[in-house]
């Protein structure tokens, strides 16, 4: 890689880290600067970045990634219960277990391509989800969800003489609590690390090989290149990202439920990636942010707040506006999501990043044209 692009990456990394860490400041004007929401955005950002390593780079559309998220969550909560309330072992274990799980799933699923691959991953995820609800109840605690209870062993904590009080223990990082702003900054650091890893992977020869597989797998094989280990590696890496996201979900709220593994959750991450722009670095995080933001904002609206919003309109118009808008907010948030989704796929297949590029091209194109105009008389 030449030095200029290396410098560009460094700038991108620095700007990204700065943007994430100062998110509470610059997101305040749109009412998104509270830790719960920002945590969610960061966590699902990690999930989407990981998903993008598989889908964006290799073109394999997995419909079962939520299973790895769920496995990560369960592992993290079990680590809280058995080992320690410290989040580090929980996160490490969650990544490892999710990685192993995705290795097994990926090894089988990647024997097929196209829609067959999608269905295979979907089948594995649905099997995990159904089993988590039924037979695996001793491990997953079924519908109630797995949570930390009093009387859990906490082996490591006891070993190091950390006393667990009478109250229900909460996750911590060497005494730092993991809720509120501390929680957000833990997730933010994880997101920056995840982004850095994704950036390195994308720029590496390995990332280039993955993109080669995406554009033409047959040709890659003809050049004597064994594609299977590469796609499997990409699959496992994205599974580990999902495991990290799942662990962070458990860190900020130590409760793991099976609904996290349902196929709708897998669909959500596909949506985030597409909305932001599959194959781009920042796009998936942007998509995750937009979806989680609108989910929070839109679902909190009700008739009353709508009437306030439209209070500047004359009454009959206001009533009409409120009744139309009320379809799309609150309970009807999914309708907005569906419409948004269709509009993006129809008009902007490359996602929001594609939109930015188009705007950028239009602007630079116009200025280039103007320069050309100016140059014309001189000729």
């Amino acid at each position: 890689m030449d030095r200029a692009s290396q410098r560009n990456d460094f700038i991108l990394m620095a700007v990204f880290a700065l943007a994430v860490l100062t998110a509470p400041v610059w997101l305040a004007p749109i009412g998104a600067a509270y830790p719960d929401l920002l945590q969610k955005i960061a966590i699902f950002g990690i999930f989407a970045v990981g998903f993008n390593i598989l889908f964006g780079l290799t073109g394999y559309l997995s419909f079962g990634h939520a299973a790895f998220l769920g496995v990560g969550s369960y592992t993290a909560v079990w680590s809280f219960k058995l080992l320690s309330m410290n989040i580090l072992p929980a996160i490490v274990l969650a990544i490892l277990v999710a990685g192993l799980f995705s290795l097994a799933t990926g090894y089988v699923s990647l024997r097929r391509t196209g829609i067959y691959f999608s269905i295979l991953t979907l089948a594995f995820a649905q099997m995990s989800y159904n089993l988590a609800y039924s037979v695996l109840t001793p491990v997953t605690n079924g519908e109630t969800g797995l949570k930390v209870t009093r009387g859990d062993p906490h082996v490591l904590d006891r070993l190091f003489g950390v006393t667990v009080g009478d109250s229900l223990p909460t996750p911590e990082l060497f005494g730092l609590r993991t809720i509120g702003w501390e929680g957000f900054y833990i997730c933010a650091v994880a997101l920056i690390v995840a982004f850095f890893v994704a950036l390195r992977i994308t720029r590496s020869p390995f990332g280039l090989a993955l993109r080669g597989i995406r554009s033409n797998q047959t040709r890659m094989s003809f050049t004597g290149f064994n594609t299977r280990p590469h796609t499997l590696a990409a699959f496992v890496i994205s599974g580990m990202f999902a495991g990290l996201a799942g662990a962070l979900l458990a860190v900020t709220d130590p409760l793991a439920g099976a609904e996290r593994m349902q196929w709708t959750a897998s669909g959500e991450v596909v949506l985030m990636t597409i909305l932001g722009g599959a194959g781009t670095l920042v796009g998936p995080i942007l998509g995750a942010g937009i979806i989680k933001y609108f989910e929070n904002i839109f679902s909190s609206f009700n008739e009353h707040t709508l009437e306030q919003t439209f209070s500047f309109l004359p009454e009959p118009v206001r009533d009409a506006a409120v009744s139309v808008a009320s379809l799309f907010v609150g309970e009807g948030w999914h309708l907005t999501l569906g419409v948004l989704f269709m509009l993006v796929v129809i008009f902007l297949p490359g996602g929001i990043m594609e939109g930015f590029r188009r705007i950028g091209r239009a602007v630079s194109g116009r200025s280039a044209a103007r320069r050309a105009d100016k140059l014309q008389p001189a000729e």
Partner: protein
Amino acid sequence: MFDALVLQFLNGLDKGGAYALIALGLTLVFGTLGVVNFAHGALFMLGAFCAVAMQRLLTLSTPVKDESVTFFDAVKDVPYLEVWFGDAGRTIIGYSVPLSILLAIPVMLLVGLVMERGLVRFFYKRSHAEQILVTFGLAIVLQEIIKVWFGANPIPVSAPPGFTGSADIGAWLGLGPGVVYPWWRLVYLAFAILVIGIIFAFLQLTTYGMVVRAGMRDRDMVGLLGINIQGRFTVVFGIAAIVAGLAGAMYTPIVPPTYSMGMDFLVLSFVVVVVGGMGSLAGAVLAGFLLGILQSFASMNVVNSLFPGIDQIIIYLVAVIVLLARPRGLMGRPGVMES
């Protein structure tokens, strides 16, 4: 033991009938237009709500003085049909589900045509991932619209009065007395087989169907012969929508419809289509019944005690095994949808 097996077999058949009908429509659309339609489950759901709408329509009521209350003037709501036709009207109301077919056919045809012309046709040349995503978005939109109109709770719909009981299958086949089976499920099974038969007859025996089949083989060649193949494929999309809608409408007495039922069936039907082999109509029907029956057998107590939880995962497990052993599904053609 044998009785129980027969019973589970029958149970599997009617569920399999629903899977087969949806999978058939999916395969038709895929085989003709080459589009992966994730909104097909939503069409099934729309059909079910056609039955609900029909029920609402027939029971539109007017206040009538209640004669049974003599102390004061009481008023009760009586459906118009009952006011006009008396007992005959009541019978008509009872038959709202079969009558809803009359509503479902034009409505679903319209929905199918609008969907094809308005959205799907712009996606012929786009990647399968994009087709999946846009139709997935459409499915969300459709189900949310239904949720706004009909609410989020399941709406019970009753089978016609003559079909509410159970058929004594055991007596017919000379089996034990325990083998009884709801009448309506038998009707559903017969209906599913009938519809599948009609579709196959349409494709195999009519000239129109022959042209459609030729178009599925080689679209460009049929076009070069001066046939408007696009128009026929659009009609096929409408037919697929009708099939899904009818499957949904007739299913309502078995499971009360909710706005989200389409998605549940869609995921399973997709598995069915893939197991059957993308693009193979016979494969879709075969796999539909097969998976329905397997699911039903897996839910037996004996099987469940041997393999705990098998009833929850059997369909997916079979899908995994079939896809690994036979990459193209049971009856798939080579080279379809493999990249």
